[in-house]
């Protein structure tokens, strides 16, 4: 058959933002996929150079609008490393709790949208949105904001946790622990779901390592690598948890790793809540006049919900000289032209959904 070239996006229901995929189709089989990015480019890395250190945190949150706090934390950690400011112990615990809650919310959304891409009439999507909303309520209680928190400060947080937060959080975690097996029950027992996910879009171990895929997509390909475990930050080394590794590397493993990670995140958050030390958690004020960087270059690595983020910060007095971000989504997206070859056109969106990309993070 003649090869048809189809332009998927930039406006398409399941491109998760504005990505353009140029797809060459032979009948219904994909010959080649070429992703085109840059529709959402805002020049964040350059904007940061024109602002003082703590003025840039809102920009960092808009990089990944599904898990804003993780990026905020990565940036603030890079600045802390440059300034040589230690993080207070209670603030470290609270950051771990909030980051794990953020990870749960992000994975829930990702599972919901994946089901939507596979062709579910928004039911699983709305279910996961409802549970994500409960987590967001909790984050709102802790930070005062629902979506973009801007609560990380140098050396601590903008505000301490409210007094009854611990009880609410434990209740919510109990609820989620009951809820996650229900997702497994309803989604995985659907034969159409499993047949459209298993064996589709296989990322081999070598390919994953060569491209530099990180996060759940890497662990689904059988590589045991998690920044939280391999080079622990904050108080992650005090809690017992296992990076969830599966070996198939297909869409289903990438979905399943997220489900398993939600369970692990619940464990970590609960352990951190129970061992939360007393003390002060407040950080330095935003109006930080001419801070004096101790280190010229700081590199900070963080495990975001979508993979490993690297913040490379060259510090000047007052404002950063240069900030470079290693975006996990951008590198994970690179896999699509390798793995989508030979798959059906309908599965392209399952693959895209399971790679779990956020365009704000890719285009920066």
């Amino acid at each position: 058959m003649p090869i048809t070239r189809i332009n998927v996006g930039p406006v398409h229901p399941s491109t998760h933002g504005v990505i353009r995929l140029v797809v060459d189709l032979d009948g219904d089989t994909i010959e080649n996929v070429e992703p085109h990015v840059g529709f959402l480019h805002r020049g964040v890395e350059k904007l940061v150079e024109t602002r003082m250190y703590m003025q840039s945190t809102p920009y960092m949150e808009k990089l990944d609008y599904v898990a804003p706090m993780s990026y905020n934390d990565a940036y603030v950690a890079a600045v802390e490393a440059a300034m040589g400011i230690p993080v207070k112990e209670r603030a470290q615990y609270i950051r771990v709790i909030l980051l794990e809650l953020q990870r749960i919310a992000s994975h829930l959304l990702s599972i919901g949208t994946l089901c939507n891409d596979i062709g579910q009439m928004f039911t699983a999507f709305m279910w996961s949105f409802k549970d994500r909303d409960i987590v967001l309520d909790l984050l709102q209680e802790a930070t005062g904001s629902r979506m973009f928190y801007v609560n990380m400060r140098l050396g601590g947080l903008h505000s301490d946790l409210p007094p009854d937060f611990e009880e609410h959080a434990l209740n919510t975690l109990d609820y989620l622990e009951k809820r996650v097996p229900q997702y497994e029950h309803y989604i995985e027992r659907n034969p159409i779901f499993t047949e459209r996910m298993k064996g589709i879009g296989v990322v081999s171990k070598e390919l994953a390592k060569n491209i530099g895929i990180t996060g759940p997509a890497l662990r689904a390909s059988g590589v045991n690598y998690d920044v939280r475990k391999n080079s622990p930050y904050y108080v992650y080394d005090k809690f017992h948890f296992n990076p969830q590794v599966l070996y198939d590397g297909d869409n289903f493993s990438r979905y399943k790793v997220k489900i398993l990670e939600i369970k692990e995140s619940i464990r970590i958050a609960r352990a951190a809540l129970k061992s939360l030390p007393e003390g002060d958690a407040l950080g330095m004020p935003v109006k930080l006049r001419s801070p004096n960087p101790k280190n010229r270059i700081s590199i900070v690595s963080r495990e975001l919900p979508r993979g490993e983020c690297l913040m490379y910060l060259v510090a000047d007095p007052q404002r950063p000289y240069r900030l470079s971000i290693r975006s996990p989504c951008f590198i994970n997206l690179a896999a699509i032209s390798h793995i989508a070859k030979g798959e059906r056109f309908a599965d392209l969106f399952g693959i895209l959904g399971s790679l779990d990309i956020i365009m704000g993070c890719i285009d920066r």
Partner: protein
Amino acid sequence: MNNIPLDNIAVNLEKNMINIPFWLHSASLLYNIIGIIIYVVIVSIIFSVFGYVVGWLERKLIARAQYRHGPTYVGMWGILQNMADLIKLLAKSDVVLDNADRFIFIISIPLILALSVFLVLLLPYSPVLQSTNLGFGLLMVFTVIAFFPILLFNAGFSSANKFANISAQRSVLILLGYEIPVLLVVASVALLANGYNLQNIIAMQSNSYFALLMPIGLFVFFVAMLAEFERPPFDLREADSELIAGWLTDISAPYYALALFIDYARMFLGSVLIAILFFGGWLGPPFLPPLAWLIAKAFIISIFVIMVRATTFRMRIDRVLRFGWWWLVPLSLINLIITYIIFVR
């Protein structure tokens, strides 16, 4: 069947009267024309109200399944929401792309609607409420239904959009996979009822519904009807997460309103057909009129179709074909053989 008394009147009139205008050559023609008009009005009202209520109920029920409220603002419980949408769509401008094959593109969607309405008028709704009592009524219905995928193919192929093009190809593939099991099940229904007459098929179910006699046939027919009428999990032609809107991608708003009509017309058709072929049509305890029984049965079947929509994922085209040929065709053959051995021989 109903024409017999009318024919008698006509014969009497022709005996007694000398001059009848040529366009009323027999009075039975006049009575038939009046009867047809009354019939069309009644059935159109039933069909429109049914389609509208099912359309509203679909939004409400799916919203319930998804922890939402569905439409609430327009009218009581949002019952006028679909009307508001329809008026908005009809008021928009009509655009046809330059690349499109203009004539076929414009004609095919109204044609699909016309065929659906033709089928709606062809079906019997009660012992008296029916247009004509054809001996081959059932075959007629499925002959007309077989035109739908071809017209959908035309609509998709002529719109010069690649997504619509893929959707058009899929519609033909679905035709290949699902026409045969449907016709095999229809054949076994005809075996049980000694013919293709729809009245007769219902009359034969007065002892026990065909659904009890051939549950496999009911299953095959239900699944194949979902596939024929583009309901999930077989909504591959209109796959919104893959093909944007499939064959409707480049269609402008007034035609889209027609397409929504087609959707509910086909839903009505499918559920009434299942009610007639498997659940005894208008048969039921006499405290309700026959028409009410038929509509109630069709309504329950539509709710079942809606619940299927809320829960399943979309199948992939190659799996759809494999499912059709590996499961539905053998099952319908088995159904035919069992029906023949147990009930006919």
